[in-house]
């Protein structure tokens, strides 16, 4: 029987720090195996060689922040059978979505001496605002084990096994004592999507929301709890306004603390 053609993988970058695509190169033990099972057809960070599309699997990193990128994402979608967004920028607009709450012109003038050279959109938006997305991998950065699981699941034609519950369950599973209850440390764990393995509580610090909102988060209740720990409204606003600031539940909660 002739051997089936290896599926083609493409990696695309929009506004981002490169950390999520670097996660693939950080799979030191799995990288050569992955490269054996899938054709890395377009990965500019790692290779000069570009194989033409269409691509079986596209991983998209970064958010849409320029008129050019708002066009380019449609080309990427057309060239991709499965399109998976990786990381907080691609799934929620990322840290650069903090501009969405301000006047971008003022932002440009703070950083750049010649604002007329800069072309940028008023808002940083997630990929799903522009094109249909087949699956989202959360995190700032993504968890590389979840990335390997995603590619493995894709190769076998099954749904990736990525839990959607909160960080709290990861704490319970690791047997970590709750930092909020035992130490009075403000923690976003109850409303934050799992995936990091409850890293921060394991290091005696409260979760700060890298993976964005979990399904149906009760952010108002958590804010009330934080207030009883002495957290001021402006600190609550900042807590919900970081890497996933423009994800709807976090956006609304931060707006509730604007004066």
């Amino acid at each position: 029987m002739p051997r089936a053609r290896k599926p083609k993988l493409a990696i695309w970058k929009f506004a981002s720090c490169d950390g999520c695509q670097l996660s693939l190169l950080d799979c030191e033990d799995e990288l050569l195996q992955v490269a054996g099972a899938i054709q890395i057809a377009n990965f500019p960070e790692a290779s000069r060689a570009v194989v033409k599309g269409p691509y079986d699997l596209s991983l998209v990193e970064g958010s849409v922040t320029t008129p050019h990128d708002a066009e380019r994402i449609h080309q990427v979608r057309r060239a991709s059978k499965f399109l998976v967004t990786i990381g907080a920028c691609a799934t929620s607009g990322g840290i650069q979505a903090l501009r969405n709450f301000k006047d971008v012109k003022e932002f440009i003038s703070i950083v750049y001496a010649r604002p007329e050279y800069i072309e940028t959109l008023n808002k940083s938006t997630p990929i799903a605002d522009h094109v249909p997305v087949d699956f989202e991998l959360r995190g700032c950065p993504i968890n590389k084990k979840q990335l390997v699981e995603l590619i493995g699941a894709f190769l076998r034609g099954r749904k990736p096994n990525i839990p959607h519950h909160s960080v709290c369950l990861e704490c319970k599973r690791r047997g970590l004592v709750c930092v909020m209850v035992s130490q009075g440390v403000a923690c976003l764990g109850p409303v934050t999507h799992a995936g990091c393995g409850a890293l921060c509580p394991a290091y005696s610090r409260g979760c700060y929301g890298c993976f964005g909102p979990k399904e149906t988060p009760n952010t108002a209740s958590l804010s009330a709890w934080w207030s009883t720990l002495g957290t001021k409204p402006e600190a609550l606003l900042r807590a919900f306004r970081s890497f996933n600031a423009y994800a709807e539940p976090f956006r609304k909660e931060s707006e509730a603390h604007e004066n």
Partner: protein
Amino acid sequence: MKTKVIKVNMLARVEGEGALLIKIRDNQLTDVKLKIYEPPRFFEAFLRGRDCREAPDLTARICGICPVAYQMSAVHAIEDALCVQVQGQLRSLRRLLYCGEWIESHVLHIAMLHAPDFLGYADALEMARDHPTLVQNALQLKKVGNEIVALLGGREIHPINVRVGGFYRVPVRQELAPLKERLKWARDTALELVRWTGTLSFPEFEQDYEFVALSHPDEYPFNEGRLVSNRGLDIAAKDYDSSFVEEHVAHSNALHSMLKPRGAYFVGPLARYNLNFTRLPALVQDAAKAAGLGPECRNAFQSIIVRSLETLYACEEALRIIEQYERPDQPAVEVQPRAGTGYACTEAPRGMLYHRYALDANGTITDAKIVPPTSQNQKTIENDLRELVPKIMDLPKEKLTWQCEQAIRNYDPCISCATHFLKVEVVRS
């Protein structure tokens, strides 16, 4: 009139998005532009109004390849503003964390991004088919660096354990012990990598650069020291703004940095090596000599050897730190908000990284300035291309383009950082 245009619309094997445009008219090089079109993300703008204690977590997100560098420059600048000094084992743990990032970032660049240029492969995976041991060993060496960052920082990318004043949690001695055996293997492997990079062929390309790096009386620099150059610069971080200027040019979303009286300068491994050779331990100095490198190296193509030497140094230094480690009583020094301005330079894998923060009495950031290494090197990269292209102008276009790309990769440019870069375009007419 014959015009040749070399255009690389998206430079590969660099971090972030950039392009190169070279114009040649009647065998005369007329234009070189390194274009950084990576979209701006406005970090310095949204840092205004944030609590200073958020700066290490926020600025880490400038770069997924060197987040530790951003965290280190951020905490040092803020501690400077708050008049706090972090000493003893906490200072050593910060050096250890930086060792991890240097190993991870340098080996990624040496083996995955730069070596394929020297051997004529499109990428490391293609190279792995003919040189499996080289690539596998490099991946494992990179992994050791990542293991250090993950152990101290919680994870490899965007570590969660760095805070103003120190860490959230510090390891007990036994937690670091397993790293010792791994690092001994890594040191041997790095030594092998130095030998191997020494056997590569390099073009004759000695340039009269002004190197700028930190310099410390007792150690090879990571977090502390004065900012010095081979042409007499010798300043503290707080005097950075009076000695350097940033220029905004039309073709780049990254600001070009210049030394006020003299223009272009060079930061990164080659600068550190030339300015701090005597601070390297005998093991690293001997390895340099065996690989054919003296205490001075002015050929940017040989930066791949210097990166291997710094990897070797980072393994050796990490081992030294682990050997003498005793867990400190407190994971962090207490910090109290106060108004002030703080400055810091630390040595990111790609070169010196400057941060400045102004804080109000509540510790809220009122102004921030960040100058990444790649924006500092942009002018020098363009100058290198101006020197290189006339020497290789007669090569076929594909070869000429590739050599220009290689010359850019000598700097391990990180465009995500600099925008706050790489397509190549060569136009011949």
